[in-house]
């Protein structure tokens, strides 16, 4: 049963209020659509590299940094700066051990670690001067997601749900998928609704055949028994609705109908058997066990079914120099895990004609220092002044690079993009003005971008 059929039928005269409450479908800021201008993107897939990959090993070769390898940092760069672990005054610069080459018509430089990404550079828009305010992972992830380094604010995906709702009939509009050895630091507040209604929060999908908690019927309950259960509950609730006329009861009846549909639609979503071998090969899907590649394919299937915002987290990019986290093998492993699938997602969206109105975002919560952090192995510390992200599709320039950092990659020289600017730009691409998408809470009109943010017009296609 689709939502439209439900609207027509159902026999209980469901009101608009009831439907509006379901999975944020159409239940947005203006009770419809808060688009302030024509949208370039209809949906977003955000590939979040949790832990913060090193831009200097992946996207930002710096001749001067190579030359100054082992030298102390010029004091002018570090005066008054904060670092998480390294001692800024005594740290030494470190060139990268990775080799780079130019690719595509745009000639973007990409590291040997990302051969598949190198193959799609003409689809990508690099932001080389992204900067943030927060130096530690938890607050920085919150900042990248909510524009604020403490708990309590709504996440980007929630704001988008609030602004323009979702187009999914049988699935949540804002879905979170994770891969890696553990969940991202910060947990549920990263996709939380803050002070917005809870229906705008992200729904984390679990890996495996049951993506949502309690999606499967209880043990020993057959499909027929489950149907009979839903029928009796509906009939009894309908009697109450007829007696009291409270729309909340109608909403609950509709919620149970949707729950019943999700019991079918969600397992179908995560069953990748229907994907042809060529597609599985494109993503590098060797098995159906949880992986970043599987999540990329799921993300495409979700947006095909109307989800508005799908966010993937892949963890363990925090390469300080510990035995398990350094710029050698661990970094290579992370790149192997995400490179092919990230590129495959962009290629697959392009082939299906979805890339033009789907914005893909790739990046971490901050970058890593030009200085080395020598523990047992070699790594780099957290760096908030400049790091690289890439965008693709959804109305941004393809084969384009915005911003440039100084000769050691410490800070942007031109084209700095603050996290607030990134947020403003994402909302802009979706048709929303970040200064007008507001919610009044405790007497104040809150925005995703607080009192900051500027649309990065330079990258708009």
């Amino acid at each position, binding site marked *: 049963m689709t939502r439209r059929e439900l609207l027509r039928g159902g026999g209980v005269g469901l009101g608009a209020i009831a439907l509006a*409450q*379901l*999975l944020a479908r159409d239940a947005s800021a203006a009770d419809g659509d808060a688009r302030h201008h024509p949208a370039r993107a209809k949906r977003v897939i955000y590939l979040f590299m949790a832990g913060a990959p090193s831009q200097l090993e992946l996207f930002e070769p710096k001749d001067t940094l190579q030359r100054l390898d082992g030298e102390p940092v010029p004091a002018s760069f570090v005066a008054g700066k*904060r670092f*998480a*672990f390294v001692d800024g005054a005594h740290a030494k610069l470190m060139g990268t051990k990775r080799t780079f080459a130019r690719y595509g018509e745009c000639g973007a430089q990409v590291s040997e670690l990302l051969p598949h990404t190198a193959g799609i550079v003409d689809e990508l828009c690099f932001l080389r001067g992204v900067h943030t305010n927060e130096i*530690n992972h*938890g*607050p920085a992830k919150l900042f990248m997601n909510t524009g604020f380094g*403490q*708990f*309590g604010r709504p996440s980007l995906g929630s704001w988008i749900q609030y602004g323009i709702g979702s187009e999914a009939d049988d699935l949540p509009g804002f879905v979170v998928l994770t891969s890696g050895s*553990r*969940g*991202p*630091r*910060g*947990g*549920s*507040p990263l996709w939380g609704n803050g002070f917005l*209604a*809870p*229906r705008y929060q992200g*729904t*984390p999908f*679990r890996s495996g055949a049951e993506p949502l*908690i*309690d*999606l499967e*019927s209880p*043990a*020993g309950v057959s499909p*027929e*028994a489950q149907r009979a*259960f*839903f029928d*009796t*509950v509906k*009939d*009894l*609730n309908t*009697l*109450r609705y007829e007696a*009291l*006329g*409270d729309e*909340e*009861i109608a*909403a*609950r*009846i509709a*919620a*149970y109908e*949707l*729950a019943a549909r*999700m019991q079918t639609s969600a397992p179908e979503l995560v069953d990748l058997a229907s994907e042809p071998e060529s597609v599985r090969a494109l993503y590098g899907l060797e098995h159906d066990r949880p992986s970043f590649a599987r999540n990329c394919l799921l993300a495409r299937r979700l947006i095909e079914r109307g989800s508005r915002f799908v966010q993937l987290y892949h963890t363990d990019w925090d390469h300080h120099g510990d035995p398990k986290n350094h710029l050698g093998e661990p970094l290579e492993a992370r790149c192997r895990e995400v490179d092919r699938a990230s590129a495959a997602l962009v290629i697959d969206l392009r082939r299906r004609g979805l890339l033009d109105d789907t914005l893909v975002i790739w990046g971490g919560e901050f970058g890593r220092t030009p200085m080395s952090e020598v523990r047992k192995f070699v790594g780099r510390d957290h760096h908030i002044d400049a790091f690289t992200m890439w965008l693709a599709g959804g109305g941004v320039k393809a084969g384009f690079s915005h911003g440039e950092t100084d000769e050691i990659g410490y800070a942007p020289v031109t084209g700095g993009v603050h996290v607030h600017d990134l947020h403003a730009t994402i909302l802009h691409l979706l048709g929303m003005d970040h200064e007008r998408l507001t919610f009044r*809470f*405790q*007497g*104040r009109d809150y925005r995703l971008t607080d009192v900051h943010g500027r649309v990065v017009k330079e990258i708009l296609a």
Partner: protein
Amino acid sequence: MSALLSAVIATLSPAPAFGGQDSISFVRDVRPILAEHCFACHGPDEGQRQAELRFDRAEDFTRDLGGYRAVVPGEPEESELYLLVTADEAERMPPRKAGERLARESIDVLRRWIEAGGVWEPHWAYAPFRTIAAPEVADESWVRNPIDRFVLARLERDGIAPAPEADRRTLIRRVALDLVGLPPAPEEVAAFLADDGRGAYGRVVDRLLASPHYGERWARHWLDLARYADSHGFTIDQGRSMWPYRDWVVDAINADLPFDRFTIEQLAGDLLPEPTNAQLVATGFHRNTQINQEGGAKDEENRVNAVIDRVNTTGAVWLGSTVGCAQCHSHKFDPLTQIEYYQLFAFFNQTMDGGVTLGPTTFVSDESTWEWLARYEAGKVGLERALHEAETAAAVGWTLFEPDVARGENGPELLLEADGSLLSVGQNPQTSVYTLEGPVPGGAGEGGVGAVRIEALPSHGLKASGPGRSGSGNFVISRVRVYARADGEDAAWRELELASASADFEQDTRSTGGGHYPATGVLVDEERTGWAVSPRFGEPHVLVVTFAEPLRASDRRVRLELHQSFGSQHVLGRFRIRLGAARGVPHVPRAWPAAWTALEEHGKTRPSLPTSMVMRERAAPRTTRLFRRGSFLDPGERVEPGFPEAWNHFALDAVPRTRLDLARWLGHGENALAHRVTVNRWWQQLFGLGLVATENDFGLRGAAPSHPDLLEWLAREHVRLGFSRKALHRVIVTSATYRQSSTPRPKLSDPRNRKLARQARLRIDAECVRDAALVASGLLQAKLGGPPVQPPQPDGVFAFTQSVKNWLPSEGEDRYRRTLYTRIWRSSTYPFLTTFDAPAANVTCTRRIRSNTALQALVLANDAMMMELARGLARRVMAEAEDDRARIQRAFEVCLSRPPDAAEEALVARHVAGERRRHTVAGAAPEEVERRTWTAVARVLFNLDEFVTRN
């Protein structure tokens, strides 16, 4: 302006609270317009203020602005305010870029107000209490208590009759869910139906108010405000022991601790004279802030964030105000300046906790251990006395130096203990300089003060019992410097020349690859040398440093610097300073370490008792400075504690200095705002929406109260009833207003029920949903209090957190405890609770949203825990009733407090028949068929809208 646009803007403007009234009220009609359209540039924020014009204070309206005034009473055409909002496009206020222009209706309100005299009145929420008389009503027979007069007067004015009283079954279920959070047992319903005497309902209410479950129910509301959780939060999110605080709240509410005590003990119980253990536990309210244990997190940043959260939470909970705006700049709408924000900050800026350490905790014990503890404590006192005597005997001729300033560089806190020793706690620094400053002790003049004696003391909290904080228990004093000065702040410090240094023992481990650390090392500026004591850890050692010249008679203060530059945390963990005349090589008599060891051995016999995190004031005060643009890296001018001017309309005796002063002010009977905010939140719990709908914003842009006089009456009644929560709740739930039917009345066009022409139908809170199923299943274990429990939850919940928590489902009674006791991990709250809108315990939550989602349906329909409870209900129904009909009836009464009607009974009977058919297969035991059939029925009942609804 097109007619359409004008209509749209009109709907954006605040409508008068009541229709059809001619007189203009500044508070109700005028200020909301000014707050919405003008305050951003002409309000309290001096940083944004334009043209030196502000409309949030009385004096500014009629001040001479150089030949003209904002308001000339009676003369709109001479009033600048009116002229500017009606000026030509180019001149008109507010400017186009600042926001929406005023609607014609709003301009009209301003004109009429000025014509009527333009009288300014204080914002209703910030004003002192008004005297309120309950209004006359036509239908006296409906009135049960004064609440009803306020409500009925407004209904009669609008020509609306109140809803009829709810039937008795609905009424007892409603009041039971509201007061104790549990549905009534069928027997309790039957007893209420059978009690036809006068006051039957009142007796039910009294029974519920006396029930210990009342404290559990209302504690949960308070714990939302307190952002209570059982873990530290952020990314590491380790567990913490805070449940004694949760139990304190339950106990305090059951004991009906009056509002002022309730406030004072939680905000400043530690500052009361000789605080009890319970009063210390109460201060856990503000220890519920998160701790970021992430590597690389900075202690001071953590600490400042916690203090900010405490200020903001206090503002939201007691003052119904978003004070947080003023962290970065003066508030744009409400009269709180940035300086005033940091005056509030200063109250909370003096506590010991901070950084990534747990900070101070207190032990909590139950009654059975009290007696044992008393014996233990008595033994301890004796041994402490013996130790003190041994220490004193070893220091004959020396006088204790009691510093009033004790600072540790690079993070540690130096706590002055009762025995005059200093304990280094908190961050363990690589290197540090301990600076101690205090008066020259009286009586030390005898023979002149010619030396300082540094006693390095063992402590059980240190590695190898210390005295140092290094990994081995060692320390290195690399340099000692001593200064003295005469009286008076301006007197200059004079560094004393040191003559000699000697110790009872000096480390010389060169033969085993170590080093030589003689006492004389403290006399030279060399980082890697100094005095150390390896391998003789866990015992006291004494260093005496003599001065070239004794102190002068005019010297009044001494400053001592203990430089500990060796590195790798070679700093003192516990030590004591004495001053005296220069004498020979110090000696530690054997009786001293022996007495210490005896005390330590005694300490090991103490049972491990649960702890709770508490607030303690530190000895040396911190200076509070304003943070420019809210950044703690950019401190500005110095501020002292103080109350915000706009809310400070009554006087306390003394100049406010401490948290205790703040707590007394917040809990004071004349703090009208705090009482209004409090009773409004209670009303919200009992009616679904507060009389002030914006329960977290009583400021100028908040909603006006639907019934201003009723709110005022309730707040004053709260004071009159001695701050009793139970007494005021009794007044509210026995009112005719509360007892109305909740059936919607769509014809009144009042969907949010602002007129109170009925009760509200409310989806019950997350905890109540599970508790109701526990009650129905017969499995609820009603035990109160104790450590958190872990009822079953679906697998894979921790897949989304950094660290996987060990969630071993509780067995036995802890599996079926009230949901209040379920362990709360901040990074992944019990999913059942989250699904039903329980707040994440990260920031204070003043109102829960009540959503209605498909995910809730999935949980109630499919969750294994719900199925377990459904099996319980099935067992119970089968045991308590014989045939199908009686069992259906019983199931309804247990779950919904009422029997089914004929149509419902037929539907359930149909379901029973279907299930029975399904389960009757070859070889199925009849008992098994019945068990499965009635489990299916129980499952249906748990999933009814009515089951999760308070009617």
